[in-house]
């Protein structure tokens, strides 16, 4: 996934669409918006990011999971099997991105890149709704995909590159 910080206005449509698409429990969300401002008045700069699970290639959450509920699923998406999760929160501590939370029913929940949609070829709900088209989803392995093209064309970064987790959400700057 790529997230274009220049296009994003931080409107939260991604957050709301995720809530309804995934029928999230009241008060929980799988994605969120960060606004960072630097400088002092009037010399300021600002970056807005829509953030979620980075679906890391070396996910510390999976390594830390004692029940193998957290696992790397099809197409490299990091998933949590609810029926195997005991809610021990080891993964929550291990995640460098604070992307996980305990569902009121006791299991740990997080973004799935809308796996139930993407496996049928649909886009994740946050990508589909985004009025600024700041979010793009596709196959990073495929050099012809839009996300690969964007990564070649634009300066970009990942969050916490030091984590060693090899995150797969790229921020275009």
């Amino acid at each position: 996934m790529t997230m274009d910080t220049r296009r994003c206005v931080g409107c939260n449509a991604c957050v709301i669409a995720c809530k309804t698409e995934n029928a999230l429990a009241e008060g929980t969300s799988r994605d969120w918006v960060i606004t960072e401002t630097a400088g002092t008045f009037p010399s300021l700069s600002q970056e807005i990011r829509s953030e979620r699970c980075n679906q890391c290639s070396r996910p510390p959450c999976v390594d830390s999971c004692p029940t193998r509920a957290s696992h790397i699923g099809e197409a490299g998406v990091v998933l949590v099997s609810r029926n195997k999760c005991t809610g021990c929160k080891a993964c929550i501590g291990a995640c460098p991105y604070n992307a996980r939370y305990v569902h009121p029913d006791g299991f740990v929940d997080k973004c799935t890149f809308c796996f139930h949609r993407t496996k049928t070829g649909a886009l994740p709900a946050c990508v589909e709704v985004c009025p600024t088209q700041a979010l793009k989803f596709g196959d990073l392995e495929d050099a012809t995909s839009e996300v690969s093209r964007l990564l070649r064309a634009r300066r970009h970064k990942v969050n916490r590159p030091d984590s060693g987790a090899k995150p797969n959400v790229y921020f275009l700057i």
Partner: protein
Amino acid sequence: MSKKYTRREFIKISALGTGALAVGSGLMTDWWSLDRPSIEDPKTDGDRIVPTFCEVCFWKCGVLAHVRNGRITKLTGNPNHPLSNGKLCPRGAGGVGMLYDPDRLKKPLIRSKKRGEDVFVEVDWNTALDKVAHELKAIRQKYGPEALALFSHGCGGSWFTQLMKAYGSSNIGAPSYAQCRGPREAGYSLTFGQSLGSPESIDIAHARCITLIGSHLGENMHNTQVQELAAAIDAGAQLVVVDPRFSVAAGKARYWLPIKPGTDIALLLAWMNVLIEEKRYDVDYIREHATGFDELKAHVADKTPEWAFGVTGLEPKLIRDSLRLIASARPASLIHPGRHTTWYGDDTQRARAMAILAALLGSYGRRGGYISSSKMPIPAYSTPSSTHKPRSPADRPKSGGFPVADEVLASGLRQASIPGTAAYDIKGWLVYGTNLMQSLPNPKETIEAIQHLDFIATIDTMPAEICGWSDVVLPECTYLEREDDLYSAQYQQPFVAIRQEVVPPLHDSKPGWWIAKELAARLGLGAQFPWHDARVYLRKRAEAGGLDWTRLEKSGVVLGKRTPVCEEEGLKPAFGTESRKIELFSAELKTLGADPLPNFYPPEEPPPGMFRLLSGRSPVHTFGRTTNNQLLLESFPENEVWINTAASKAISGFGRALKNGDKVRLVNQDGARSMPVKVKVTERIRGDCVYLVHGFGHTSKGLGRANGRGASDSELTTRYKTDPLMGGTGMNVNFVRIENHEG
């Protein structure tokens, strides 16, 4: 919160989850893998998808409502709809929270104690409608039908407008004019002979430079405009943002001009000065299309950036550099007209200055500037014509005034409810879809006006504060549970969209068309509502307009023929002014005794220790109407008062610098006190003003979630400065000090 399982329970749960699969699990090497990883499908795709259009704000985007087992699970953007293009803003996506809000108005209510005490009894619809009809008959008999006023916001208001016309009153006003976009409409109309309307006919997508003056596009989420803004930025368009606050848009701008509030006209005049002085304006365009250039040139000759610096606080170099960027992109250099433009009472003149600047850039009628639009003609449903010719609206003072207003002033109708102030008195109010306690400035005046009324009824979906002041409250169902009139948009791509009932009305709520029709029948005006139901009405209108009804029903929208919208497409710029030219110098204003060219008049300074109160929008909320919506409030639960970091260190009564999350009260120049509100200490605002997102600080006990969250800017707007040209209520003229909530 986490639930603990014993191993035995765990296996049982797993087996339940996977059924027969567990039986053959002997081949697995460890018991944790008894079941395959199962990934939940939240099952929110509809078994039925109904296209309709949104009413969470006034932009009216096309949505697809997914219905599963009779419940709306989600709303997505309609890809065929030109305003949504398959995308929604957060409010549109969260509209379902309004439908299932447990605090909705559920039954008709009749007041049982003193007006304003917010004590009601639940009644059935017959009792409520009979009561309203009885009161409206009494008003008609006693004072004539014109003594009834309708305050309205949103599409559904059209049914009540029809009712008012049948009843015989033209006192139909919406706060969206005199409290919002009115000055802009007047200023552009005076200059180009045409107002802008909604959606505004501007071509953000093709602009190479976009200048925002006090508009915080991106925080005000006009879906299509934000889509275009993002596309334009991606295509390399530059932004110039004039705002006392470092808005989201300012964060993307090449130049941010942190202007002293109230001095925009000075900046605009200085920009014109440089534009003309350096001959960067569109000489040919002005020669061909405009009148009054010489007067303008002379008028701005001494309005140098150095002069403006002393007034606006903006460095002359910044004024020059930003103007040069703006000019370099012309004609695809868009001076965004803004929308909420009632700030200082001279707002029509500021809109004039913006229009004149747009003209000098040659951007009116050109790609990337102001473009043309068209509308599909849909004939009105024919009803018997009324023999009663209503008196003109009572929204102007006895002595006259507001000569260039071209819509009814909601604030003027309020004023006319104070006996003896207008040509005749207003004695009854119908309030549809607008919480007048927040949408009109100075709620005290609203309360005073209400106390003079014989009758007030409110039609709404939520128990907003205005309901508490009403005699009868009629619970309307939400936009997802009803039909409303066809929406034929005036837009670059003309289209007609349909709103249709997705799920039947919940509780004992009813659609507006039904309420209006039932009232009409009781008032002897049934002939004006000759159709059986709204669907019959819609179908007849659609077919009279030559639309394919089945297609409209199925796709939610029918597109019209797109015609050329700008000179680049072969449409010559045309102007609706009397001279058929752009009126840089306004002969009309001169005749009216007003400034024919905009002048800068310094605003009042904040008293020592006080800040100018500014307000704006959150992308997640529409006014105060969404603040009880669970889905939306999770992202933005309360407003905060923004205060500059340096200024926060010098607030007395705290014994220390303010810090984020401190609870304070704002107290204005007239002693109005806000509810407690959290502080946001930030570099993102000037030190002479503070900022609140509008729509918070609800006091209605019926709003279980919104009640008590944040502060109401409306409560603090006890003063407003009325625009002498069009009656807009300039509201950025209040000053507040910050008081320790604990102290």
